[in-house]
């Protein structure tokens, strides 16, 4: 141990540390300053940015001993630093915070920027903020926040600035809602002040007395029989409390769509990231030493990596009991497809392939679990669906769900990657039960790559039939989805990819055949957009091909086939509100589509894309609903017990706005509980854009019930007819004009003979159907639509695609919180841009080539192209105050839109995602790219 004396946030600090202690560990673990976050451990993501002697550094790359005599500043330094305070105010006000995990690092980076450039140009921001990655916001609102902070430094009035920002966001979304007080307004999010100050508690920020540190050993090979495991040396490592292998578990397989995975491998391993053993020890060092000491003897087995090969007779079996490695399959036909093709003027045949995409939520997956002597397991984890996680954890641990309590921590981004298809929480529970002590198991960034559940790569063979005027008359799809070694949500993703896009178009003759196929590769699963980005990559581009062959403007073909309100799609989706035509008109007029398409310039191209998304889906347990408890508390404030959780998208604030509107109280009076399965009602959690629509309806319903109960109580207490009473602006108004405080009514109702609290339930189940074998029925209660246009330029010398202009017009019904919803659209777009241009993974013999951010490229702030996004005026009758889903739809068409633009620019179409410069250059030179450069095997 070495004594380190330095200045920490303006105060002298003297502490001892080992030479191999990193600065981040000193700050977080020894000094308790957990505002500084770890996102990658290799200095790449910027979450751990702090300042040393006035300069930003990556605290994960710096030795603690190297700060001897230096001045260190962290996000907790705001008390001494007015610029830091301005930045915190600005990030909170401008909507620059979603999950908040990257935020402390962003703010510390921006702190440096504003010191050097008090009035930064766009170029200054892109240069100086490079290396602070954000996966939620698409960076646009971060740039807004930095500009706002710069104005605040020059004494701009924060109140005036905030009002200006909000009113400009609200202007386009108010529509017919002028009489609403809370809905349709950019209310500041309730969770972002603690995120900008570093006070939000993520799972890795928690410790419990006696807590152990968990670590997992992975297979590192794609397919092998486990011949022997020797853990004796690992158990002997000082500090090791328990070492588990598959033999020490209940050997129960689990999984949402097909229970096929064990928490720890039994008999064989089926992909390189598979968990084979786990340890818990008193220190991370001891845990690592124990993992290194485990000896496993494997007998390698022939492996299969390509889904088509895996379906061939004689291919290696990933799961012995599964025929031809087919995890899921269906074939459906609506109408007479063959006749439609026979009668058509044009038939096109195309084949497209999408790619892996990792979620790269800046906070990796992690869990802290405690097993109590009374056989109850408490799990703090960053899951996006606590109630569903409870069912699966209980199943895998062979416990009653009631004995498992899940408490959702602050979630540092999910995007589907925290929907618990992976084993992290279950292994943590097993370690806690076996050791009898609390155990924390945090994934590293490498773990998230090795054993996350990335987007399902889907190959789609598309045949489509058209009439001469562009009317689509038939569609015939063969969809092959790469399930990887285990079924996370890939079977459901494949199902969506095969069917949902039909919802965008007028009903016609369609056939779709799906194969979800096991391979010896990383298991795939849910990623924002689900199957839609892959489906649109294929279908939207195929329609573009048809337009070209027919000599028609793709816009005219899109308008000709666009679905309309009140229609039913080929597979039975009942469409309520639908402003797709308005979206198409806006997205094309803003980019000047007709003129620019006519004036085709070399290497420039315009592309169009459309998509649809659900608002909830009847996926699980024949339930597409939500329920909440609304408590009208002492003091007249409203507390909503809601288990849906907050994954960074702003759901809690949205619910508060809906409840406040319905109740007639100020929005600041309403707060949401954390999701805790001991306290909150069963909730499906965040997926399929369901929270605003499904849970929002439950909240509205609960608020309406609470309002009724308040007024009934008031009527009885005041001896006035209930019809004569009103609750607005937080006060009860009587017929005589008298006003009563809500707090008084609540108190008088409780504190009397026969007193009672005012508590109301709210429940909602959407008008949707579970898909049976025929896959027919409305999968969701509402559908959101979007149209995108892109103008791009191809660099003919390098093949690089540059987005010159990108326009989005979205129909998401009433927008509950415009600033927040805008952030969702931006973030969705940026993830779509990554899928389109930069994100993919090379594998060698089934093993990822590199498993950190050096080898996987999410868009950076310097990649932000110019974008314009609008919400069109729309009202969904089934939605709360007319709202539908908003989080995913603007990711779905991005790869296809850019693909169409590239095809327009160079006259060649890229068919395998992503659109890398190599593929574009090869297309320009008419060279076929060797498949090994793009292979996903």
């Amino acid at each position, binding site marked *: 141990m070495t004594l380190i004396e330095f200045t920490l946030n303006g105060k002298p600090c003297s502490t001892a540390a080992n030479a191999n202690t990193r600065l981040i560990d000193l700050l977080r673990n020894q000094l308790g300053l957990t505002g500084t976050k*770890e996102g990658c*451990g290799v*200095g*790449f993501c*910027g979450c751990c940015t702090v300042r040393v002697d006035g300069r930003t550094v990556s605290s994960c790359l710096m030795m603690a001993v190297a700060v001897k005599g230096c001045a260190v500043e962290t996000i907790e330094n705001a008390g001494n630093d007015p610029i830091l305070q301005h930045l915190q105010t600005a990030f909170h006000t401008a909507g620059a915070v979603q999950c908040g995990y990257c935020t402390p690092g962003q703010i510390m980076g921006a702190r440096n920027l504003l010191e050097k450039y008090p009035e930064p140009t766009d170029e200054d921001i892109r240069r100086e903020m490079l290396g602070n990655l954000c996966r939620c916001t698409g960076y646009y609102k971060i740039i807004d926040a930095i500009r706002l902070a710069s104005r605040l430094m020059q004494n701009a009035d924060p109140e005036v600035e905030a009002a200006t920002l909000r009113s400009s966001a609200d202007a386009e979304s108010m529509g017919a809602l002028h009489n609403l007080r809370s809905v349709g307004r950019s209310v500041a999010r309730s969770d972002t002040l603690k995120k900008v100050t570093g006070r939000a508690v993520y799972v890795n920020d928690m410790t419990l007395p006696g807590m152990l540190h968990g670590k997992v050993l992975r297979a590192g090979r794609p397919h092998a029989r486990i011949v022997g495991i020797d853990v004796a040396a690992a158990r002997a490592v000082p500090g090791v409390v328990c070492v588990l292998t598959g033999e020490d578990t209940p050997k129960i397989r689990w999984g949402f769509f097909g229970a096929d995975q064990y928490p720890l491998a039994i008999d064989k391993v089926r992909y390189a990231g598979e968990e084979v053993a786990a340890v818990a020890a008193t220190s991370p060092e001891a845990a690592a030493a124990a993992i290194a000491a485990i000896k496993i003897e494997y007998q390698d087995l022939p492996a299969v990596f390509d889904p088509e090969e895996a379906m061939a007779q004689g291919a290696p079996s990933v799961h012995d009991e599964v025929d031809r490695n087919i995890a899921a399959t269906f074939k459906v036909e609506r109408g007479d497809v063959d006749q439609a093709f026979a009668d058509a003027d044009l038939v096109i045949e195309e084949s497209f392939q999408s790619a892996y995409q990792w979620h790269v939520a800046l906070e990796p997956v992690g869990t802290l679990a405690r097993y109590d002597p009374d056989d109850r397991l408490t799990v703090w984890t960053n899951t996006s669906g606590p109630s569903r996680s409870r069912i699966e954890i209980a199943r895998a641990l062979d416990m009653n769900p009631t004995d498992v309590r899940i408490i959702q921590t602050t979630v540092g981004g999910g995007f589907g990657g925290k929907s618990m298809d992976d084993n992290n929480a279950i292994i943590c529970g097993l370690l806690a039960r076996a050791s009898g002590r609390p155990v924390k198991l945090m994934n590293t*960034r490498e773990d998230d790559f090795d054993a996350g559940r990335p987007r399902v790569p889907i190959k789609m063979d598309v045949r489509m039939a058209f009439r001469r005027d562009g009317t689509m008359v038939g569609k015939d799809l063969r969809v092959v989805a790469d399930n990887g070694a285990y079924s996370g949500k890939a079977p459901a993703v494949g199902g969506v990819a095969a069917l949902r896009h039909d919802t965008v178009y007028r009903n016609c003759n369609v056939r779709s055949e799906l194969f979800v196929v096991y391979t010896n590769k990383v298991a795939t699963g849910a990623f924002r957009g689900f199957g839609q980005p892959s489906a649109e990559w294929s279908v939207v581009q195929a329609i573009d091909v048809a337009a070209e062959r027919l000599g028609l403007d793709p816009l005219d073909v899109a308008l000709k086939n666009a679905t309309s309100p009140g229609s039913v799609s080929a597979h039975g989706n009942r469409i309520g509100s639908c402003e797709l035509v308005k979206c198409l008109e806006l997205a094309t007029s803003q980019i000047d589509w007709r003129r620019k398409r006519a004036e085709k310039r070399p290497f420039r191209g315009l592309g169009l894309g459309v998509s649809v998304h659900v608002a909830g889906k009847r996926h699980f347990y024949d339930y597409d609903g939500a329920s909440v408890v609304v408590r009208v508390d002492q003091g007249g404030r409203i507390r909503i017990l809601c288990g849906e959780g907050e994954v960074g998208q702003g759901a809690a604030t949205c619910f508060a706005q809906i409840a406040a509107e319905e109740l007639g109280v100020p929005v600041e009076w309403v707060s949401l509980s954390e999701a805790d399965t001991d306290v909150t009602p069963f909730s499906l959690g965040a997926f399929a854009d369901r929270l605003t629509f499904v849970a929002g309806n439950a909240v509205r319903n609960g608020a309406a019930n609470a309002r009724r109960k308040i007024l009934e109580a008031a009527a009885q207490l005041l001896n006035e007819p209930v019809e004569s009473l009103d609750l607005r602006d937080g006060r009860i108004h009587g017929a005589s004009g008298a006003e009563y405080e809500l707090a008084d009514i609540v108190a008088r109702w409780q504190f009397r003979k026969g007193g009672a609290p005012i508590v109301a339930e709210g429940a909602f189940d959407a008008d949707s159907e579970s898909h049976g074998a025929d896959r027919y029925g409305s999968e969701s209660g509402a559908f959101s639509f979007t149209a995108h246009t892109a103008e791009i330029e191809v660099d003919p010398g390098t093949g690089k695609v540059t987005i010159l202009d990108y326009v989005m017009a979205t129909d998401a019904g009433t927008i509950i919180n415009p600033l927040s919803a805008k952030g969702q659209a931006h973030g969705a777009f940026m993830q779509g841009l990554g899928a389109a241009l930069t994100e993919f993974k090379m594998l060698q013999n089934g093993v990822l*080539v590199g498993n950190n951010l050096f080898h996987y490229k999410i868009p950076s702030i310097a990649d932000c192209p110019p974008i314009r996004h609008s919400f069109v005026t729309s009202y969904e009758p089934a939605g709360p105050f007319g709202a539908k889903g908003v989080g995913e739809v603007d990711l779905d068409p991005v790869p296809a839109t850019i693909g169409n633009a590239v095809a327009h620019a160079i006259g060649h179409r890229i068919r395998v995602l992503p659109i890398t*410069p*190599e593929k574009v250059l090869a297309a320009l030179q008419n060279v076929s*790219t060797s498949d090994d450069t793009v292979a996903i095997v």
Partner: protein
Amino acid sequence: MTLWPSFEFHEPKSLEDAFALLAEGGGETAVVAGGVSLALRMRLGYRPGRLVSLRLLEGLEGIEDDGRCLRIGAMTNVSDLAECAMLEKRAPLLRAACANVATPRVRNMGTLGGNVAQRDPNFDPPLALIALEAEALLASRQGEIRKTQVSALYERPEELRRDEILTAFEIRPQESGGFWSYLKHFPLSHDGTTGINVAVVLSLGKGGAIETCNLVVGSVSTRPVHLRATERRLVGHVPSPETIADATVPIADEVEWNGSDQRGSAQYLAAVVPELVRRALIQALERQPDAKQA
């Protein structure tokens, strides 16, 4: 999340003490400059037994200019170099290369000497140093200081001996208003790191013909590639789109390209690097020399 191995850590206050620590270490001893690459290597499994930091040594930081030669201390911070007005005047190519290093945080932590000592083929400053024919000063225990070409450190890994410490670089200043360019192309995300980088410095002689020319490309092979054959094809010619194209096209066949990585295959590198060199040359030639303005 990340564990570093246990190691001894020393911060000697004199070069003599540093040499003593390097000499006596039993196991693997590593010299720490900015520590960025070392931290990354340790995460990937590198297990040095002893680290010797140069942080407290005097005299290894800063730039001296005696008119004929710039001497830059090995421990000079990369951000300082990227923002140095004097360097912008005297060796703008090196300043530009430093400004292109990764991200602000890496520049804030990194040093020029540490950057070179890693001998990483992807790094930026070495391209400029090689193009400017810089020399590295290597000190050893005997009190000797040996000079060697920076390019030699890449051609012969053993050139930097384990008992030596890289203390400084010496560079001839670029001609005022000379022709140079530094270009970095990001095939995927613009992330500061995963690019292809090109350094060019050249001079024109009588009749506008290219008199001297240094072209160095990074991130495409196992070490920075000094395109000597291309230079020979250019020297003596008056630059024109045709002469530049003639000189750069053959680059495709002259380099041992790295195998496939996420940026693309060897085939892609061979297709795109000649184009990037062509662009770098044109960019250099388009730079309006001050001399002509005067």
